[in-house]
């Protein structure tokens, strides 16, 4: 299996969205605030569906929110 990790811009995008709270984003995506915190900290890789929902909230394509880094 190729080595790598998923990085994301969720924290930056929340800031650009007027300091949207983790709880607010979680509510709109359908996960808990703790899960958003874990995603931002790189401790949890969301499912594809959740990733698409997050990107949709920010109005960005998926690849601008999540990136695969080797």
């Amino acid at each position, binding site marked *: 299996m190729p080595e790598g*990790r998923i990085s994301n811009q969720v924290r930056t995008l929340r800031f650009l969205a007027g300091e949207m709270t983790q*709880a607010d984003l979680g509510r709109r995506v*359908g996960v808990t605030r*703790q899960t958003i915190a*874990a995603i931002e900290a*790189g*401790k949890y890789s969301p499912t594809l569906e959740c990733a698409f929902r997050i990107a949709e909230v920010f109005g960005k394509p998926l690849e601008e929110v999540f990136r695969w880094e080797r």
Partner: protein
Amino acid sequence: MLSRERFAWVWLTALAVVFGLYFAYISLNAGAVAAMHMGQRISLLALALGSLGVIAGLTALLGRQREEDGTPTPIDERDRQIEARASVYAYYVLMAGIIVVGCVMPFTTGGWSIVHAALLAIAAAESVHSGLVIHGYRRGWHA
């Protein structure tokens, strides 16, 4: 800390303390325990299992996590994935223990040894489950 992680910590500690005390008492007082009536031995076991039940019940009742608006924190995909992984590994541990208890021990020993081995298998499986839940929340989870 999420209530599910907190519960896993309490449960892991309770398993170690209750089963630790129970098995320490059984081994240190082997002679006295062997002389006990069946009812006394069952009561001793019920005391250990009952304490675990009370601890689990109180933790679940008092440690329920709530959102800012007072509604219970829902379970989401991360919780489900952590729970699923922990359950898979715990199942293998339990299966290994039960194979020993059910398929090997009846031919080599009997009575309370089998009961205690089954209890150890369950405790080991539960410990693995709680340990992996804690690991999933603290160290992260990547499918």
